[in-house]
């Protein structure tokens, strides 16, 4: 897994896997930070019952186009399932919220499929104020 850098995402679109109403404030914050930085975001959550105030895709098939980059905000178990799906769909880069949320096997799977990976909070790059300071402390360049 690579260290998170400012140019990790190399496309204008991002798939946000695990956009969650349970963790609404953070999810919305990341969504807004991405879009404020001119990244088109496709929030994705398979839970039918979740309620959101923005359009959240419930299946990858429903996406107008499949982005090359993804940010995953899921627990370890669900991350493993999501990564399998994304590899099938030809994803090129995956940013995990935390290294603790991804298993070694999943990382191996990504490596075999040629998917570039990194871990870290995207707010360190796309957020403002305190988040930028966090990025500075974490050495995100």
């Amino acid at each position: 897994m690579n260290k998170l850098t400012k140019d990790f995402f190399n496309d204008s679109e991002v798939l946000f896997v695990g956009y969650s109403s349970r963790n609404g404030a953070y999810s919305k914050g990341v969504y807004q930070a991405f879009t404020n930085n001119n990244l088109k975001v496709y929030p994705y959550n398979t839970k039918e019952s979740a309620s959101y105030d923005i359009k959240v895709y419930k299946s990858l098939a429903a996406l107008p186009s499949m982005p090359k980059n993804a940010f995953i905000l899921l627990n370890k178990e669900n991350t493993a399932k999501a990564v399998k799906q994304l590899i099938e769909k030809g994803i090129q880069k995956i940013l995990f919220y935390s290294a603790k949320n991804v298993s070694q096997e999943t990382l191996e799977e990504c490596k075999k499929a040629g998917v570039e990976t990194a871990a870290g909070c995207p707010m360190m790059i796309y957020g403002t104020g305190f988040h930028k300071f966090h990025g500075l402390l974490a050495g995100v360049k």
Partner: protein
Amino acid sequence: MKTFPLIRVKWSNEHSMAAVLLVLVLYHLPQWLDKPSGILSFLLLVAEGLLLDLSLNILRYHRMWCCVSAAVTAAMISVLSFGVPLGVRMLGVAIALLVGKHLWGGTGKNIINPAMIGLLFILIVYGIPYPFFPASFLLIPAAVLSLLFLKIRPFAGIGIILGMMSALLINGDFTLLNLLSYGVFFWGGIVLTDPVTVTSHPVAGSAAGFLVGFAALLYYPLSVSIIIGILALNLFSSAVESINDKNIGMQKSKLRIPKQVPYLQDQSQMVDLTDDRLELSPEEEIDKLELSADEILSRIKNNEVFGMGGAAFSTYQKLMTVLTARESQKYLLINGVECDPGLIHDYWLLRKYPNEITKGIELLCKCINFSAVHLAVKDLDRLEFSNNINTHKVLDYYPIGAEKILIANVLKKQIEYNQIPAACGILVLNVQTIYAIYQAVARNKPVNTRFLTVANLKTKSAKVVRVRLGMKLREVMEAMYPGVINVFAGGGLMQSYLAEEEAVVDKNINFIATSVFPNYKESPQCSKCGNCVRNCPVGLKVNLIADLVDQGKLSETKKYFAFECISCGSCSYLCLAGRNLSDRVKTAKEATK
């Protein structure tokens, strides 16, 4: 769909608390000059307050919320208990935050001033020397700056200042040094301006403040008198606020929101995205058409003219309501105010098509015998209308263009919340609706195009664009500002929503924009600053309604008249806690209709 203003005030609770903290630091100056080790004690007390509050907030909200108020509590205890052993003071800060604040539910929910609880504890276990401050002219800058906070809650603060001054006068102790050492401006400016624990009621606040100040200094000035007095005033304030929960009527304050985009100076700068022509052919010229009132009404009805100010209500139905109203005096009021800070197309229409708008007015006058026709605008510059139309320049505040507010300003008539202006014989139509009437009657074809404002708030630019109803919003935006990501739409900048990919221009849309997301941090820590209530055009107790909505008690919002909300968005724009209040009130309104 959540609606919200795309702009917000720059101030927040954190800013105002940081300003209070700065003044409290200045109050320490004479003490620190006398005993420099006091700086270290101050820093330790503030650090303790911050850490304790942060931990409790994380436990309560699972998020790191601002704790500047805890630093203020610690700083207040620090300055008022100088000379007391550090351990006791630290215990005082802990008691203040635990018992005075978090026991009640956290910031904004306490009914008593936390610092006073901490001080009462210190007073009981150790005692506090009095007066609190050394007699020093070095306190002058802090005292002067304290007075600035009277803007937040003026009445109790002014009351205590006058009460203390009166007591000092009676005792013959009225000197500048006494005013400073007894902390007259400190209590008035810093302590009794706390919006959470002090009533905003003018009579109750000023009377209670006066009594507390007067009693504290008249006979035996003691630290216990003032601390107990302030706590009693807090309890009294809570009682006053709980019975003062009625709708308070139309707003008195005038909220000014500057235009976020410039008006078009070149009148030819409209972008037409339709394939429809604007100019009439010779056979369509209004002057050549000899139409009866019934024929005009029939064309308005059949061509589905609708209110283009955002309501999208059927213009024919509105006309019929005015026509059948029993009022002897009927009025036509043309709304050209365009008070939303993001809209520019009505301004442009009034200057580009004065003849067409005048002819539209004449058509309406053929149908209804109006006593007078009024045109309300904010700017008279380059307006060319005949003397038959009474042109009014209205005050520039938001939301002056709201129907009932405009009627009150121009016609000096009050329309009650349960009355409809049209039923009172007052026809209020937006400028573009008049233009649409002219086009619909002359052409006799359905209204399927409209003008709107398309803006890029990042670059502060905007264009007037003519679109066809049903066009994709993204298509419109791509034509004006290619490559942008966020597309917002709505009745105006103050009532926007994030547009979905496939969303189309409908009758309610006046405004399409790209912008960064406004920073609604949605802090649960309402500081009861009162901005939302003071600036609500219909005088709603917005904070109480929003709290009930957050608690899921929608039916209870009826008692606060949530259904009167006009969705202007002022409360969200002004909220210092960064809460999208207008969307909450909208939810309550829909639930209690």
